[in-house]
């Protein structure tokens, strides 16, 4: 397809863009979906544009605004002389500086078997909470552990080829948890 000029058989760029934006009426959307179902070229393009739109870096106006506010606060706070309100520094809780989230390492994607869940360690984390779900979002198993590996009990039976999701949360302070991304995997090869 050359630039924005589509052959008569392919939808125009603006129609595909409107489809991705969810802006088409039912009848029009159905026409586009019928075309996409049979046209690998358009399907590839739509998927690529959806990915591009999802990953476009956002302008940093908010960050700049926050940075300016932070600088202003740093300049003003010493002048206000407020330490008595918060008490002496030695009595305060240590500052929470841990912001790293655990990363779900394995299993991810298609794996031969999945008998244990492995994730990355988070500095100063006291324990981890891991959760396994099926494709309907039903929680199959939940566990708390101090280690970064959790072995699935025999009571959890994974159907070969079925998708499962899991995530792990790390406790980094009192009632303070940071969670990994939700990752999916399928265990075993049901066919062939």
């Amino acid at each position, binding site marked *: 397809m050359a630039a924005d000029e589509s052959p008569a058989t392919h939808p125009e760029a603006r129609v595909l863009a409107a489809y991705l934006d969810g802006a088409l009426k039912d009848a029009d959307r159905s026409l586009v979906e019928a075309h996409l179902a049979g046209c*690998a070229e358009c399907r590839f393009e739509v998927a690529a544009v959806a990915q591009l739109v999802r990953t476009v870096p956002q302008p940093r106006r908010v960050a700049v605004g926050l940075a300016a506010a932070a600088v202003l606060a740093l300049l003003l706070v010493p002048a206000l002389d407020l330490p008595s309100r918060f008490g002496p520094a030695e009595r305060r809780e240590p500052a929470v500086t841990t912001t790293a989230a655990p990363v779900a390492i394995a299993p991810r994607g298609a794996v031969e078997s999945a008998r244990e869940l492995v994730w990355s360690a988070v500095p100063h984390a006291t324990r981890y909470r891991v959760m396994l779900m099926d494709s309907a979002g039903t929680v199959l198993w939940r566990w708390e552990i101090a280690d970064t590996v959790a072995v699935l009990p025999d009571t959890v039976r994974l159907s070969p080829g079925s998708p499962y999701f899991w995530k792990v949360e790390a406790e980094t302070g009192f009632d303070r948890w940071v969670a990994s991304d939700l990752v999916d995997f399928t265990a075993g090869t049901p066919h062939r």
Partner: protein
Amino acid sequence: MALFLYRRRGMSNPIPAELACLLDAADPAAREHAWDRFVSAHTGLLLHTARVVCHDHDAAMDAYAYVLEALRQDDFRRLRAYTPMPGSKFTTWLVMVARRLCVDQVRRRYGQPRGEGPASEQVRLVRTRLADLLAEDVDPDQLSEPANAGPDAELRSRELGRALGSSVDELEPRDRLLLALRFDDGRSAREIAAIMRFPTPFHVYRRLTAVLEMLKASLRRRGIEGPTP
């Protein structure tokens, strides 16, 4: 398809201010000023598109320059072709046009890029739709060895393929697209959710399960109970 042919017909969605200024600029100076404003508003998006398509930094910068040049060409012919549609964003359209231009430029300079295009997607993931479809009912011991495949098995396999094709054709376009994205293209549930606007990947899996059940029922009605030839 008439839908793909219609043009501006009093659509109510406004054209973005920077584009309107550019297209309405009366003299060359105003046009240059408006162009600078347009580029400044969308440079991040255009650069991102060029980088994703080209991977290599120099090629990406070349593609970015090419996109700008192409958008300026013939008194902004491509930008003038933009017609707002209610609920649709200008930036989505711009990404689509910029991506096509980048792909054109890469093909012109380097030929068909490796790993780009639907064919490579299909190669990347070899999936047997029927096997996936009926997987749960299959005992691996009962699967026939390819070496044993004779003319009968081949004929049966063709029949299975035809039956599956007919069953798929009976589905709604949305369900056919769902199957194509999942099994032909090997897209993840997350990607499919973004493309087809499912609220979450869970909804994708739920719909897939339902569609596969419909297909199984349709195949049973055609006298096919399993994938074994």
